[in-house]
Structures are given as structure tokens and as C-alpha cells.
């Protein structure tokens, strides 16, 4: 299974790189879709069907909206020539990337293999969760019972985002 996930992650990296360098913006959007749908297969292989359902639906709707935006505006990407500020930004980005890679290799040695062990807190959640919450689906039990505050915060964040979108996009307002 590790080999399969490695191949899929390779596909995702290829799609992300192609999305940056594509000349046509429509094919760039489709390459972004490649990243999202590969992530869905990764979630399914790692035994997280709840996340896979949410990811596949949200990815489809986002792709529809992005394709509509690209078809409505231009399909050509506007190229800019690199000046001194561009070179400085590129060097800074490469330096930060190397720094992150170094700290990642340091911190990966003290972590366990993905999915092989569970935290002490998670053990208390898993033991007898069906009797405590009464729900057969453990994820719903955790999301709405043990971690109810988080879910309420997510719902309020979504409402606030919609209010912001309406504030920006409504030109005329209500009569």
C-alpha cells in the first residue's frame, strides 16, 4: 500500500507542477483537479471514507466554478519578465524551502509511521465510544459530541465567509 500511495503522491506533484507551468489556463485548472481527485484515492486507501466523500464533492464544485471563471475571462496567462525583485523573491523561496526540508528531516525521526499508533487522547476516544455517544459512526461521535465546540466554530466560520462574499459581491444591495 505504501508503494501505491507513493505513486499517487507522485501524480499529485506532477499535476501541481503542470498547473503552474501550463500555457493554457483551462488545462491548468484540470491539473488542479488531478491533485484533488488523487487526494480522494489517498483518503480511501488510508481508510477515511468520511473525508473522501467531502473531498470529492467539494473538489467537483470548486472545479466547476474555476472552469466557469476561466471560460468567462481570458484563457491565456499573462507573463511577467523577471526583474531584481523577482530574483530576490525566488532566492528567498528556495532558501525557505531548504530550511523547511531540514527541519522536516529532523522532526520525522521522532514521529511514528503514519497510522501505526494512536495518541493517548485518541485511545480514550476510541474505547467504548459507541456506548458513550450512541452513534455507530465514530467520526460523527467525535465531531459532534467530544469536539462539539470545533464543529460550532466551523459552522460560524462558514456563515462569516458567506457574509463577507455577499458584502463584496453585491453591487446594488437590496432595494
Amino acid at each position, binding site marked *: 500500500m505504501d508503494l501505491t500511495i507513493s505513486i499517487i503522491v507522485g501524480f499529485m506533484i506532477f499535476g501541481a507542477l503542470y498547473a503552474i507551468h501550463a500555457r493554457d489556463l483551462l488545462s491548468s485548472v484540470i491539473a488542479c483537479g488531478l491533485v484533488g481527485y488523487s487526494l480522494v484515492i489517498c483518503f480511501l486507501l488510508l481508510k477515511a471514507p*468520511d473525508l473522501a466523500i467531502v473531498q470529492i464533492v467539494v473538489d467537483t464544485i470548486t472545479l466547476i466554478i474555476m472552469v466557469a471563471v476561466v471560460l468567462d475571462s481570458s484563457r491565456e496567462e499573462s507573463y511577467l519578465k523577471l526583474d531584481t525583485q523577482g530574483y530576490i523573491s525566488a532566492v528567498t523561496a528556495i532558501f525557505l524551502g531548504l530550511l523547511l526540508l531540514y527541519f522536516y528531516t529532523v522532526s520525522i525521526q521522532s514521529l511514528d509511521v503514519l497510522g501505526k499508533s494512536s495518541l493517548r487522547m485518541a485511545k480514550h476516544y476510541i474505547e467504548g465510544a459507541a456506548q458513550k455517544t450512541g452513534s455507530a459512526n465514530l467520526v460523527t461521535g467525535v465531531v459532534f459530541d467530544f469536539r462539539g465546540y470545533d464543529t460550532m466554530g466551523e459552522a460560524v466560520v462558514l456563515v462569516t465567509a*458567506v457574509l463577507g462574499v455577499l458584502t463584496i459581491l453585491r453591487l446594488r444591495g437590496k432595494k
Partner: protein
Amino acid sequence: MKGMTLIVKKTTQLIAGMIFMYGIYVIVHGHLTPGGGFAGGVVIAGSLILITLSNGGDFMKLIKEESGTTIIESLATILVILVAVSGFIFGTKIFFNNFLPKGIVGHLVSAGVLPLYNIFVGTEVAASIFIIFLSLIIFKEESKE
């Protein structure tokens, strides 16, 4: 915005109802099978977006629909907080207290207040995703004039 051809219109009118029902199924069975409020709400919003894209803006009477979804979305969020607060009133004084009887694990009516949270969060997510899409369409229509 204009709609698509007659074949696309008829096909989406046949399919969108089934997608809507599937979203309701995912929400209602959220405490038994994978899925839940967020996933089912996005599926419902997807069916509404599908029928709006294929039939054009005139089919849904866009201006009325937008004010309707705003009210539904705000009401759903208030209901989530109300159910959470009602844990204060019944039993021990804990926010998000699961005060209803738990029932048998695996039945459709079980798990206390968790199905209510699923239904409210699903309504809220469907309304907010659809309202973002509608405001984008209305912005395009208005900026054209």
C-alpha cells in the same frame, strides 16, 4: 445567464431530484454510515447548482431565492447553538450535553441529539455553498448591464 439545450435541461431535471434525495440520505444516516452534515450539505448544494447551470437564471427566480437562502442559513446556525445551549437546561450543566435518550446503537433513531446536529449543519452548509454560487452569478449579471 442562458440555459443549455433541451436535452441537457430534461436530463438534469430527471437527475437533480435523485442527487437531492441522496444528500438527504447522507445527512440522515450520518451517525450510522460515513458522511454526515458537511458531506450531505455539499451534495444538496451540488444538485441545486446543477439545475441552475443547466436551466439558466430565469428558471429559479434568482432574486427571491437568494434572500430565502440567507434566512435559512442564519436560522440553521442559530438552531445549532440553541441545541447546544439546551444541554444546559436538561440534566447536568454542560455545553453540548447529549441529553436525549441514546437508544440502541445502529438504529436510525438513536444517538440522542447527534442526528439533530447533523440535520442543522447540513442545512447550513447547503445554504451557504449555494449562496456563494448564486452571488457569483448575480454579480456577473449585474456587472454586464
